């Protein structure tokens, strides 16, 4: 099964194509990294996959042929958007209540235990939590839904190194122990090195490279994912820098 399948997918904002002719199959059971410079179309592809945006061209299906944004798709996908939007004036326990009410499945004991472990007080307002705690709260709420696919848009961009490490550890544990497929976007290449086993390289709104990390490294004779990405991005987009 493919968790994301796109064919000829495109999204246009006004006259600019944020994503063009994207044809892609991301298999289940992977931690897939969507890599590319800012403005490459990463968020657009993720928003299309979770149904927040309607395609201008082509089609995208998720979880084995379900239309993106359909009830069956929403049921199986948990999305943590960029900057982890939460209701800032609601408490942590209100956020748990909301997420539980809005979904068919919600593992309340898991959410409580996890937040307790992280030292996030249930009565604190979400807006009063630190950036790392907000990200962990959003991730915990997403995982408590028992999704089959976890989609993360730039999850660690705003976090300090410790929070970044903790966040990724939680994601990897979910992937390893529970078989959750993960699709995450990032422009922090070093962070992806440890976690991703599938790579999709985007630049200027087009897919440049996609495949298992091991296969890609072997095929291109590169030692690390970071080198591979940088080399490839330099070739296609001269302006990209670390």
């Amino acid at each position, binding site marked *: 099964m493919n968790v994301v399948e796109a064919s000829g997918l495109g999204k246009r904002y006004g006259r600019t194509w944020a994503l063009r002719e994207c044809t892609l199959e991301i298999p289940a059971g992977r931690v897939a990294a969507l890599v590319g410079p800012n403005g490459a179309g990463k968020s657009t592809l993720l*928003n299309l996959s*979770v*149904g*927040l*945006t*309607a395609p201008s061209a082509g089609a995208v299906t998720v979880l084995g042929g379900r239309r993106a*944004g359909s*009830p*069956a798709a*929403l*049921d*199986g*996908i*948990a*999305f943590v*958007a*960029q*900057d982890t*939007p*939460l*209701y*800032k*004036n*609601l408490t942590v326990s*209100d956020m748990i*209540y*909301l*997420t539980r*009410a*809005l*979904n*068919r*499945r919600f*593992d309340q004991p*898991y959410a409580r*235990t*996890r937040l307790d*472990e992280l030292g996030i007080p249930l009565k604190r307002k979400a807006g009063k939590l630190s950036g790392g705690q907000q990200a962990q709260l*959003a991730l915990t709420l997403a*995982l408590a*839904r*028992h999704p*089959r696919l976890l989609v993360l848009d730039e999850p660690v961009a705003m976090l300090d190194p410790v929070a970044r*490490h*903790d966040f990724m*550890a*939680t994601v*990897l*544990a*979910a992937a390893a*122990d*529970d*078989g959750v497929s993960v699709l995450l976007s990032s422009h922090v290449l070093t962070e992806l090195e440890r976690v991703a086993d599938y790579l999709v390289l985007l630049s200027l709104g087009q897919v440049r490279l996609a495949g298992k990390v091991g296969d890609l490294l072997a095929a291109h004779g590169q030692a690390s994912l970071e080198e591979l990405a940088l080399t490839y991005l330099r070739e296609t987009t001269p302006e990209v820098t670390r």
Partner: protein
Amino acid sequence: MTALTRPARPNSAGDAALRPVPWRRMAGVSWRQHRIALAGAAVLLGALAVWLWIMGTPLHHAYAAAIACHPASSAACQGSIANFNQSVENHFMGSKGTGGVLLQVVPALIGAFVGAPVLARELETGTFRYAWTQGFGRWRWALAKLVALALVLAAATAAFGALVSWYYQPYLGTGNPALGLNENSPFGDLFSLREVTFPAWTVASFATAALAGMLIRRVVPAIVATLAAYAGLAFATAGLLREHYLTPLVTSSVSPPGTAWIISQWSTLDGRFAFAGNPPTSIFNQLGPCLAAGNGKPLAGGFPQQLAQCLAQHGYTQWTSYQPASRLWPFQWIEGGWLLALSALLIAATIWLVHRRAA
């Protein structure tokens, strides 16, 4: 740090028969997200209700005393009648009263402050990316939220409208001209503050605010736009539309009922149209002696009725088109009906925009 292992995911075989998340769950969600706005509306309505109650109770007592008094011509009764009429004067009541005008903004404010954040806040803060990717589904989320909030607002404001009706009862009253109690038309500015129209205007304001929030995507500009649109609609309705709900009655009586809403007046001479409204100066001058003669003994209806009688003496027939007070409830339901239809349309448009919106 150790990551907690989660229990195994439930069997996904049930996916084929995917049942949607129950609608009723949105009640608690809507309450948690909008309790501050709802509490604000409740405090505003509650404070106004207490005020109406405090002001209205002595007025009802004065009215009851005035109409129960026998014989009406006795000095004591005249005193209590004068007392009641004075109470009415002292209160803000009547279509020109400042309080009545102030109450007009209440439906607009409640609707705008509760309705605008529903979508605008989500779009402003980015939380729509959370709300619309949950299993509930986004058009269902919008429908459940808007309908639940509209129903709560309608119930609360209908109760408040009933209190307003109670408060104005002695004023609109049974009007008892024989006792010298004032008669007034129920179609004044108060018309939009009754049991049917108050909730209907509130819900219309709410629906306008929700749509404005979806289109403008910012809370404060959406509130401002709503208040502007509401003011335009309210003035147009009161000034142009309302009088046409039903064809007015026409009478040539010199004294149309005191509770009637006069739409227009015109006079004919020998079956031909003479003039509309008040007589032109040339005719006024002809009436001079007649009007002067009546000065010593004013009629119950005051100058307008005296003028009508003098016109009649000179062969003019004065026609009056009016809406009788008995049409209050048909008019209430007509106005409530089209406002609710408009609200339903606005809410449907909002949901459609949520459904197809491309972020």
